[in-house]
Each structure stands twice: as C-alpha cells, then as structure tokens.
C-alpha cells in the first residue's frame, strides 16, 4: 500500500511541478493572435506534419492570412479543410 501511495504521490508531484512551470511559461511567452487566425487553426488537423511546407499548423494559418499560402495547401486536411478555411476567409 505504501508503494502505491508513494508512486501516486511522486507522479502527482512531478506532474504538478511541470504543470506549474509550463503554465508560467505559457504566460511569459505569450503571443497575441488575431481572431481569424484562431478560427483557421481550429479547423486544421493540428498534426503539425509539415506537408504544407510550413513548420506547424499555426504557421500555416498565419501564412494564409498574410497571403503567403493558399487555403488548399493542407495535404492531410484535404478538400474538407480547404472548404472550411475558404468560408472563414470570406466571412
């Protein structure tokens, strides 16, 4: 029983410490985004696979807004995602 308790405690404490550090980090390293950017990111597959040519889905969304990428470029998302992005852009 002691070991189960100790194990649960260690994992809980470790997770807590990391959660604290990461929460602090997310505040300290925060970046402001525009609302359409977030909407686009929401409809992307978020696998960060890089097949569109951008480092991650966030960068891809940003590039779309800046006009540096086309809404059709997401390989994993395909037609479905392209349609959704087009709708967001035309709102």
């Amino acid at each position, binding site marked *: 029983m002691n070991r189960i308790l100790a194990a649960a405690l260690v994992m809980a404490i470790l997770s807590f410490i990391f959660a604290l550090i*990461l929460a602090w980090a997310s505040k300290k390293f925060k970046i402001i985004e525009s609302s359409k950017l977030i909407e686009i990111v929401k409809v992307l597959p978020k696998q960060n696979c890089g097949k569109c040519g951008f480092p991650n889905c966030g960068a891809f969304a940003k590039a779309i807004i800046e006009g540096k990428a086309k809404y059709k470029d997401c390989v994993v998302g395909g037609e479905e995602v392209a349609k959704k992005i087009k709708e967001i852009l035309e709102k």
Partner: protein
Amino acid sequence: MLDIFAIFFAAVVTENFVFYRFLGLCPFLAMSNKTRTAVGMGIAVTFVLVISNAITWLLQHFVLDKLGLPFLQYASFILVIASLVQFIEMYMHKYQAALYKAFGIYLPLITTNCVVLGLVLLTILKSYNFLEALIFAIGTGIGYTLALIIMSGIRERLDLADVPEALKGIPLALIITGLLALAFGGFVGMIK
C-alpha cells in the same frame, strides 16, 4: 579519461544511434532531404538530449531509486522529456522566432523521437555516473547529427538522379540507410 573517450567515440561512430541501434528513424527518414534542416534538427536534438539526460539521471538516482519506485521510470521519464520539449518550444516561439520557424515541426516531434527516450533509458541501464551521462548525451547528439548530414548530402544529390517510381522516397532512403549502416558496421570492435 580513456573511458569517457570510449563512451563518446562509441556514441558517435561504432554504436551510432541510427545505424546501430535503429533509433530516431522516423524523423531521420522524413527530415534528411536538405542539409540545412538536417543540421538544425541535429542541434535541437542534441540540446534536448543533454538536458533530458541530466534531469532524468537526477530523477532516477535521487527519487526513483531512493524511494524504491523503479516501475515509474518510463512514465516519469517521458513526462520529463515531453515537458522539456514543450518548454523549449514555447521559449523559442517568443524569443527566437526566426530559429523557431527554422526548426519548425522538428521541435515538438523530438518528444516522440526514440533517440531521446532511448538515450535516457540506456544511461540508466549502463549505470553511468553524471559526467559519463552528459558525455554520452553529447556524443549521441553529434552522432545523430552526423548521420543526418551524411544522409541529407546523399539525398540532395539523388534528387537529380533518375529513380524508378516505386523506389522514390522512403524505399530508397531505407536502402541508402542500410548501406550506410554497413559502412558504419566496419567500425565495430575498434574500441574494446
């Protein structure tokens, strides 16, 4: 002193993590097309390797061993690695935006890169002390970067060659890796 050198040399050459231990293959195959990105990936991985090895070594010796909880090793180690990578990613996104963009997906993918987890587990298995652990990590990182650079150099040349359709991409990359493994295999037994 010779011990440390042996560990370093083995990690880089004779027991290279890619060609001898089959680790870090997914990003290795996917990211080794261009030399510039290969170097970037190698540096990022080395950085994560050294810090992860330091933290997990301390975790193992001062918490898991002291409290007799060896079964928590995999879960706690991967938690360390995932948190570390997340933290580095957030820091770089804000303060090193250009570098962050260059590293791109490579950064979050390092969490699932078996090189990192493989390294921290091997360090404990081999009962290295703290200094040996650090050297092991640096050597592994350099060895991984070396493998990436060699591979990307070859693949960049191959882009200009006429490759049969079925072999294009991954199949050919695997065969090349196999030949490189054969070459590196020639170093086995150099260090006793």
